[in-house]
C-alpha cells in the first residue's frame, strides 16, 4: 500500500487510495459473459433452428457449463470472509443487487445448463452406462440417476423439455449477464459505472465474447482431432459474431458519445483518465485492437469473396482479438471505475500483485481452470455427434 501513495495524482479521499476490486473481480464479468454468450449461441440452433451451427451446439453448452462452474470462484477468493458466503442464500438482503447473485447463478446452473446438458446427453449416458465396466459404469449410472429408460417416447419427452428449457434459458442468460451489468450500472456514486446502458452493453459484449470463445474452441478441437473444419458452420458463427459485434460496438459508442456531448461534472476527470492511465487498455486494446480490427476483419469476410484458408485465419485472429478486447472492456469498467476519486480531483493507480490471494497468478489459474473442466466434460460427454443431430 505504501508504494501506491506517491503515485496518487491530485486529491483522493484518504480511504479511496486503495483499490477495492482487483483483477479477480475483472474475471467475474468476463467469465459469466462467456457463459451467457455461449448459451445464446447454442440456443440459436435449438430454438431458432439455425442448422448450420449444429456442430457447435453441444460444444457451446459444455463450454458454458465449464465456465459457469468457475464463475463464482474469483468472487469467493476475493471475499474477506469466504466462509460466510452461504449467508447470501440463507439471509439475503433482498434490495441488494449482489444478494441476487446466488439465486441467479443457481437457477442458471441447475435449472438451465445442467438439466439441458443432461437431457441432451441422456441417451448416450445410458448407453455408456450399459457398455462400460468398473468405476466408469458406476459414474455413468449415477449420471443417468440409475434410470435406463430410453424408449422413443421418453426421448421425445426429453427433447420437448429440452426445447422448452432453452426457451427459458435465453431470458435466463440475459438475466445472468444483464444482472452483472446492473451490479455496476446501479452504483450512483460512481459516474463511470452509473448508466442504465450498462446491463445492455454487458449483455451484448457477453454475446460477442461467448460466440468468439465457442468459435475458437470449435476450431481448436477440430484441429486437435485432425478433422476438417465445417466451413458452413464457421461462416455462420462468424456472421452472427459480426452482427452481435455491430450492436455491441454501436451501444458502446453511444455511451461514449453521450458522455462526451453531455459532459457532466465527472467528464473532465474521466476524460483525463481515458487519456492517461486507461489509454492503453481502453483506446488501444479495447477499442482499436479488440473491436475495430476484428470487426473490420469480420466485415471484410462478409463483403469480399475469400478462400477457405484465409477465412479460417481471419476467424482465428478475429476471435482471439475479440476476446482480448472484451477482457479489456471488463478491465476498464472494473479497474477504471476505481482509478479516479469520487471528488473528481485526483487519480490513483492499480498495482497488481503476483502470487497473492487476489494476484495475477490465481487469476491466470482461474482462466485455465474452465478449459481443464471443459476437457474433462468433453472426455465424459463427447460432443461430436448425437442421435438428435445426426453425425
Amino acid at each position, binding site marked *: 500500500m505504501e508504494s501506491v501513495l506517491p503515485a496518487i495524482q491530485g486529491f483522493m479521499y484518504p480511504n479511496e487510495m486503495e483499490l477495492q476490486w482487483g483483477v479477480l473481480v475483472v474475471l467475474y464479468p468476463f467469465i459469466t459473459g462467456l457463459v451467457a454468450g455461449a448459451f445464446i449461441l447454442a440456443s440459436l440452433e435449438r430454438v431458432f433452428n439455425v442448422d448450420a451451427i449444429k456442430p457447435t451446439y453441444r460444444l457451446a453448452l459444455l463450454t458454458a457449463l465449464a465456465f459457469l462452474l468457475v464463475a463464482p470462484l474469483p468472487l469467493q477468493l476475493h471475499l474477506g470472509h469466504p466462509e460466510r458466503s452461504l449467508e447470501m442464500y440463507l439471509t439475503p438482503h433482498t434490495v*441488494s443487487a449482489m444478494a441476487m447473485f446466488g439465486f441467479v447463478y443457481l437457477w442458471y446452473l441447475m435449472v438451465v445448463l445442467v438439466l439441458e446438458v443432461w437431457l441432451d446427453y441422456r441417451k448416450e449416458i445410458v448407453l455408456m452406462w450399459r457398455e462400460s465396466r468398473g468405476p466408469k459404469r458406476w459414474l455413468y449410472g449415477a449420471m443417468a440417476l440409475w434410470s435406463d429408460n430410453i424408449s422413443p417416447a421418453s426421448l421425445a419427452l426429453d427433447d420437448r423439455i429440452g426445447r422448452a428449457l432453452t426457451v427459458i434459458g435465453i431470458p435466463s442468460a440475459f438475466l445472468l449477464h444483464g444482472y452483472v451489468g446492473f451490479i455496476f450500472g446501479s452504483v450512483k*456514486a460512481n459516474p463511470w459505472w452509473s448508466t442504465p446502458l450498462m446491463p445492455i452493453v454487458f449483455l451484448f459484449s457477453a454475446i460477442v465474447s461467448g460466440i468468439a470463445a465457442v468459435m475458437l474452441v470449435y476450431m481448436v478441437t477440430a484441429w486437435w482431432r485432425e478433422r476438417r473444419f465445417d466451413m458452413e458452420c464457421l461462416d455462420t458463427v462468424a456472421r452472427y459474431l459480426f452482427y452481435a459485434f455491430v450492436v455491441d460496438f454501436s451501444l458502446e459508442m453511444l455511451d461514449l458519445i453521450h458522455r462526451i456531448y453531455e459532459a457532466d461534472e465527472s467528464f473532465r476527470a474521466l476524460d483525463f483518465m481515458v487519456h492517461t492511465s486507461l489509454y492503453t487498455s481502453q483506446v488501444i486494446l479495447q477499442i482499436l485492437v479488440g473491436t475495430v480490427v476484428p470487426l473490420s476483419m469480420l466485415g471484410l469476410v462478409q463483403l469480399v469473396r475469400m478462400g477457405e484458408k484465409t477465412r479460417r485465419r481471419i476467424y482465428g485472429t478475429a476471435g482471439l482479438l475479440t476476446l482480448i478486447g472484451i477482457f479489456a472492456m471488463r478491465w476498464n469498467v472494473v479497474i477504471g471505475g476505481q482509478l479516479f476519486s*469520487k471528488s473528481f480531483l485526483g487519480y490513483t493507480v492499480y498495482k497488481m500483485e503476483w502470487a497473492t490471494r487476489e494476484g495475477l497468478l490465481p487469476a491466470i489459474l482461474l482462466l485455465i481452470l474452465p478449459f481443464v473442466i471443459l476437457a474433462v466434460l468433453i472426455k465424459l460427454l463427447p460432443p461430436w455427434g448425437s442421435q438428435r443431430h445426426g453425425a
Partner: protein
Amino acid sequence: MNPDRRSFLLGTGKLLVLSTAASVAWEAIVAGRPETATNYTMTDHWWAMVVDIESCIGCGICLRACKEENDVPRMPQYFRTWVERYRVNPSDLEHPVVDSPNGGYDGFPGKGDPDPDAKHFFVPKLCNHCADSPCVQVCPVGATFVSPDGVVLVDKTYCLGCRYCVQACPYGCRFIDPRTSTVDKCTLCYHRITKGLTTACCETCPTGARQLGDLKNKKDPIHQFLLGHHVLVLKPQMATGAKVYYNGLDGSVR
C-alpha cells in the same frame, strides 16, 4: 420414471428443506437475545451532526481522538473521520486545490498559502449517516444497516468483506479493516452516544466546530442552529438523506 428415483428425489428434497430450516433455527438459538441497554430507547432518537466550517482550524485533534477511541488502524489510508484543506482561487472556483496529508492527522503544519489570492478553509468529513444509504442498500447480507436511531452501523461478525458498500458510498467514508477483513466506518461513537455522551470528535474539538445533535429531541440546540443558519449537506444531488449538516459550506467542496 421408476419409483426409486421418485423416492430418492423426495428424500433429497425433504432433507434439503428441513436442514435449511434447522440451520436457521439453530443460528437464532445460538445468537440468543440481544442485550438491552438501560435508559436508552433507540426509537426516541434520530442522530445527526452539524459542522461549522468557519470554526474548524484544521488541528486534527478530532481524528486523533477518533483513531484512539475506536481503535482505527493508524495507516494513512484508513479513516473514520478526516479533515480536508481547500484552497480556492475566486477566479477559478471549479478547480479547488485540496489536500489532506495523512487525513490531517497531524494538522496542516507549515508554509502559508502558495496562492495569495486564494481563500482557504478546512472541511471535516465523516460518515453522513444517510437515511437512504446507498451502502446499506447494496450489502448482500444486510450486515450494514441503519439503526432505529438513525446511525449507519456494521455487524462485523456478519460482513462478507465483498466491498460493494465501499464502492457505493459517494463520500469515501468506508474502508476494509486489514485486521478483520471486514468493512469499517464511523459509528458516531455509538457506544458513547447511547450512554448519554457525545462522540469522541465532538468531545475533543477545541472550537466546537462539530456538534452532535438529536433531531427527535426538541430541546436539542441543533434545532436552533439549523433554524438560524444556511446549512448544506455534501453532494445533495446524490439524494442519500445525509445527516451531517455543514454551515458555511463552499460550493467548490466535493
